[in-house]
């Protein structure tokens, strides 16, 4: 059951137009127009090399496109807009510090007072089920715990947009479920989730709308129900039918 807020709540709006990236004469990303807004997570599906992660990095400003524009809430993406975003990578990058210190790192940068930071860290650790591991070295966590910490750290600064690049690709079903719970709660609190996944089942479970990337282009972008029930593009039909190569 989904616990996303009802349509109409204030969600950030992300738009990309004429976004292009080419390397070595090969077009890697070619997005004519993409608008992401509204409640519920947007799941980005597609085969390997379709440009999913590249799109995510572009939208987060980690990679600059050769051409095109990205707008957040009708303003071109800049440092102040990026500060309202956060990203979690496929392989969690945890600082060589304790679990609590990983969270504190982000909160300190927000300029929070010590007491407020301690309270926020406790709140986050409880949310992620890591309250008993606060003083443990972050790098001694299991892969699933590490990814949960990475998500908690990304959520620490209460971002408006959270990018997730295949956060559960290395996890077993139990660990995946815990991550999905965190994602649902963040979405319910109003954070816009943009998540790349290979897992069609996961896209069905979490997605409010689906973006299908195919050969660097957006092949289809529709509400999840419509996408899965009546895929319109040939790419979507092929992908849902099990095709592996664009």
């Amino acid at each position, binding site marked *: 059951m989904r616990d996303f807020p009802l349509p109409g709540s204030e969600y950030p709006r992300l738009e990309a137009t004429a976004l292009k990236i080419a390397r070595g004469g090969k077009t890697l990303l070619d997005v004519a127009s993409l608008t992401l807004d509204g409640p519920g997570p947007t799941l980005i599906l597609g085969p390997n090399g379709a440009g999913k992660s590249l799109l995510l*990095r572009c939208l*987060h400003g*980690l990679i600059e496109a050769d051409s095109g524009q990205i707008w957040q809430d009708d303003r071109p993406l800049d*440092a102040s807009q*990026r*500060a309202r975003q*956060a*990203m979690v*990578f*496929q*392989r*969690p*990058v*945890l*600082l*060589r*510090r304790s679990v609590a210190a990983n969270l504190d*790192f*982000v909160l300190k*940068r927000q300029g929070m007072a010590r007491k407020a930071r301690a309270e926020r860290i406790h709140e986050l650790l409880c949310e992620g089920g890591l309250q008993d591991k606060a003083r443990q*070295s972050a*790098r*001694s*966590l*299991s*892969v699933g*715990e*590490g*990814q949960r910490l990475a998500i908690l750290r990304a959520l620490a600064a209460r971002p408006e947009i959270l990018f997730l690049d295949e956060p559960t690709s*290395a996890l077993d079903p139990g660990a995946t479920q815990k991550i999905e719970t965190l994602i649902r709660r963040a979405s319910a609190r109003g954070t816009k989730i943009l998540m790349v996944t290979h897992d069609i089942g996961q896209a069905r479970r979490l997605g409010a709308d689906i973006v299908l990337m195919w050969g660097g282009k957006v092949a289809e972008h529709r509400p999840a129900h419509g996408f899965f029930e009546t895929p319109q593009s040939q790419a979507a039909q092929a992908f849902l039918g099990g095709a592996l190569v664009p």
Partner: protein
Amino acid sequence: MQDFAQEFMTALSLILSGDSELLNIVFLSLKVSLLAVFFGALVGMPLGAALAVGRFPGRRALIVLVNALMGLPPVVVGLCVYLMLSRSGPLGVLQLLYTPTAMIIAQFVLVTPIIAALTRQTVESLDAEYTEQLRSLGLSRLASVPVLLWDGRIALLTAFLAGFGRAIAEVGAVIIVGGNINHVTRVMTTTIALETSKGNLSLALALGVILIAIAIAVNAAVSLLARGAAPQRGELSHA
């Protein structure tokens, strides 16, 4: 063989009795080498970090040069520092030749490339892992440097100890610029060389035992630190 055993027993008794001459030599050695490594770290660590995260013309050539300087022959360094500090040299006016300061300068020249090169390797490999995450968290390249240095602290301590190991064990540079003057610039390695040539094997052996003990302690510390920095249970790198 019996002579050797006797010399060795005398050496041990020198150590255990806390012979003042022996202790003075050991303390001077530690003082010179620790100060050389301290100043070497002050220069070498920022230099290594700059080579790791900076992008500027000639960076690759500078990295090759720093790596090559790790293998500087101590006697050549001693000769160069001697020429700089000798009365007719550019720094002769400072009158530093045959002082512990001259020895610190020579060892500083020897250890700085080691610390810089090891720092560069540490920071560069950490940067490759952290770069996207730190950018995502809003840190500029410059702001990333303290994070990389702090998170690489164990490996950097290893670099510091590697520099110390090189400094405390070298003889060529300090004997040229220090002159091996009794009670002034005589350190463990130079004393061993001198006393062996004089046939005073017990003092040489006593210092040799202490030097080996220090070398073992440094290596044990490096090994323990490296183990502390190694992946632990549940390490994420296999994800």
